[in-house]
């Protein structure tokens, strides 16, 4: 998919470029930044991450499974130890909790991967090694007819380099 990538060395110019682009209906933007910066979040005002749902569900499943396995296994072959009840929820809370944490965090990680589309095998077009170093990158996903306009816009805002990618 064709598009234009602009590399910035100053953060504020990158932000201005993004704002301008969005004003001029360039909506398919991707920003590359070495470290998460609030400026970009404000500029892009993307919807909040949906990771939380996965975490919640994972945690609940985990807690349930933790309790269930302990209770079920104890009752499966009931043997009395120390005169204690066969299955008792008090000590089994430990399993509920530990498995909740386990499954909860694993599903969180799964969510992170799924939502942010990693792992991916190939480096997508437009990415540049500088973006993990000192530079900020703005990728404009656009058709060839508006490409010129976007490129100019990026240069105007002080992009160090602007490149067409196809």
């Amino acid at each position, binding site marked *: 998919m064709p598009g234009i990538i602009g590399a910035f060395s100053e953060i504020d110019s990158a932000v201005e470029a993004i704002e301008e682009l969005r004003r001029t209906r360039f909506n398919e933007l991707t920003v590359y930044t070495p470290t998460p910066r609030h400026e970009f979040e404000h500029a892009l005002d993307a919807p909040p991450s949906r990771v939380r749902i996965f975490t919640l569900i994972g945690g609940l499943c985990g807690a349930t499974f933790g309790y269930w396995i302990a209770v079920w296994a*104890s009752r499966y072959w009931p043997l009395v130890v120390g005169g204690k009840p066969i299955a008792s929820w008090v000590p089994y809370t430990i399993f509920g909790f*530990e498995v909740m944490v386990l499954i909860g965090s694993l599903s969180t990680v799964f969510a992170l991967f799924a939502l942010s589309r990693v792992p991916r095998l190939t480096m997508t077009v437009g990415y540049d090694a500088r973006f993990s170093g000192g530079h900020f990158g703005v990728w404009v996903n656009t058709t060839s007819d508006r490409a010129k306009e976007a490129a100019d816009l990026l240069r105007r805002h002080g992009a160090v380099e602007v490149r067409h990618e196809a």
Partner: protein
Amino acid sequence: MATAASPYPASEQRPNVPSASVRLPAVADYEQVDREIIATLRPTLGWFALLATAILCLLIGISAWTYQIYSGLGVAGYNPPVMWGVYIITFVFWIGIGHAGTLISAILYLFRAGFRTSIYRCAEAMTVFAVMTAGLFPILHLGRPWKFFWLIPYPNWRLIWPQFKSPLVWDVFAILTYFTVSSTFLYIGLIPDIATMRDRETNPVRKAIYSALSLGWRNSDREWRHFTRAYLFLAAFSTPLVLSVHSVVSFDFAMALTPGWHATIFPPYFVAGAIFSGMGMVFTIIIPIRKFFKLQHYVTLNDLDAAAKMTLFTSLIVGLAYLTEFQIAWLSGNKYEQQYFWNRVFGQWAWAAWIMIICNMVLPMSLFSQKLRRNPSWLWILSLFINLGMWFERFVIVVPSLSHEFEPWQWTTYAPTWVDYSILLGSFGWFFMWFLLFCKQLPIMAISELKEVVPPKRKHPHPEEFEHSRDEGIAHPQVTGEHELPGGLGAAGGGTH
């Protein structure tokens, strides 16, 4: 964020900038971070020497274990009814150390404690390797280690399952969970940094490896958005986990009738002790690293200072716990407890008990002095004492209790054998082998997070950041602080900026 904008005369310096926010005056821009951190990955001769030593120790441990498996647990120094010994002691010791990492990376993350940024990667790696080490010991101390999997609930043709009321099964769940979560946490944090390494790497082989490990991370806004959120939740999960895991370990003792074990104080007491010992190990590791990797301007004296305050705090809790135990025994009127605690400090085990008290209660008091808190050499020496003291704390909990129980006819003593010591040595070899391998393959500081606290380039410099840098320009205690140490660890580092 400090708001005091008034310039200070160079004479009276402000040693304690609020450590909630970290500032790295000696770090100019993002590229410098990349450059300096990646520079630490170059293997040196000293590193190879250390690694070789570690592996040698590990081999000694492995051979001792092999011998023990072959001829039976009797080769260790067990002296019934002292049925637990060096192995359980060392298990608790390593688990304890495994706690500071997650504490620093998770809890301090939630509390937004800035001094965490520069040390948490080290601490986290330390956690994972410490748990890997600790995890060996429950298996290693079994009479029939080859049957350890019977503690894991899995469907089997015996139709019989683990006994879920046993603290040892709680351990299995707690430790496996803790290992999984903390290693995941470490890896997730590493991904962006690995991506950075990938982009800086020239050697094709290493580049390929980094690319695979980085999972094709691109630093895109979308990735960052989910990343920050997921990271927050992981931290939120890890925080109670840290507390639970060592509580569960403490249940191994608290659930038993044994005088000296049967106490409700154990969970908080153990958690505090764990964090304390963990901080000790953090110092033991981070101080040489910042010296030899020349990173004094990342791990600043402010960071050490703040960490030292936390160490002092946990030390006070631990000390209080020691005293409380005696008070409880005294007030309880329980003759078993009273005779046991008397025997602990004035009886056959006095020497061990006093090592514990001096190392964990008395010496850390020195951290009330700000001068010593900001003296890396002292912190490092103290940390060694803390490690020793915490090992002996576990010794004092395990051995004297078992050797002086309800039944006087079975009172006895205990002396480890060379097998115990070899395996103890081997555990250190195992731990440091992993850590050494880690610190030359992966960034020991979170590059992307360091960048968060380094002001980015701007076309129109930001007023808030003017004040930021000016403030630093005046109050610059760290650098001078370093030079105050005559030949101290930091001295060499002073030259880097």
